[in-house]
């Protein structure tokens, strides 16, 4: 079974440019999450999809960040325009919802290291 896959693994862009990160969750997982680790600090939640719907986007830092999940499958996270403080590692995770709507173990992708210069 394929795990959570993220593209690209590393991206270096200039301040003001646009970057789009992609996440392919484990097949059949309704839950898809985005997290990030900035400046070596703790890993923080960005948002949560259940299928194609945004369940919780309270962690999105500002309106320069836009996440989508087309048809409840893969997801993209666009940063436009990128700022220096957006540098960090962006993780995607997916999990299954069981029959009583309890979230189960979350599996993480390998992360995308974003460097804004």
């Amino acid at each position, binding site marked *: 079974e394929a795990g959570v896959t993220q593209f690209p693994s590393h991206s270096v862009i200039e301040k003001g440019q646009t970057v789009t990160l992609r996440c392919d969750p484990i097949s059949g997982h309704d*839950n898809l*999450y985005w*997290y990030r680790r900035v400046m070596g*600090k*703790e*890993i*923080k*939640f960005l948002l*949560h999809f259940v299928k194609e719907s945004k*369940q*919780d986007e309270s*962690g999105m830092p500002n309106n320069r960040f836009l996440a989508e999940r087309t048809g409840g499958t893969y997801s993209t996270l666009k940063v436009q325009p990128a700022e220096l403080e957006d540098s960090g*590692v962006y*993780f995607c*995770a997916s999990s299954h919802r069981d029959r009583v709507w*309890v*979230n*189960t*173990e*979350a*599996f*993480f992708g*390998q*992360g995308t*290291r974003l460097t804004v210069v």
Partner: protein
Amino acid sequence: GIQVEQSPPDLILQEGANSTLRCNFSDSVNNLQWFHQNPWGQLINLFYIPSGTKQNGRLSATTVATERYSLLYISSSQTTDSGVYFCAVEQTSGSRLTFGEGTQLTVNP
């Protein structure tokens, strides 16, 4: 929101030593996971352990949910165990994982 505290923040060991990492959390949880972030930045699932004890090779974990803590044991440490160990919890009323700040482990040969 829920608070997650990990200790110690940094740990340096000689190869072959044993260690215990701790994770305290401030509220009831229905999910607790331990992760290892390796030097390449990848987050590796170690344990899904909302309660009880599990073992996987040289690693084992125990969560005492009623007392709101979890322990990760590493025995006979190896240099490849180096990296950051994260504890993450999901509140019973929540839908996302909240991470601790991690324990930076360095195992010297």
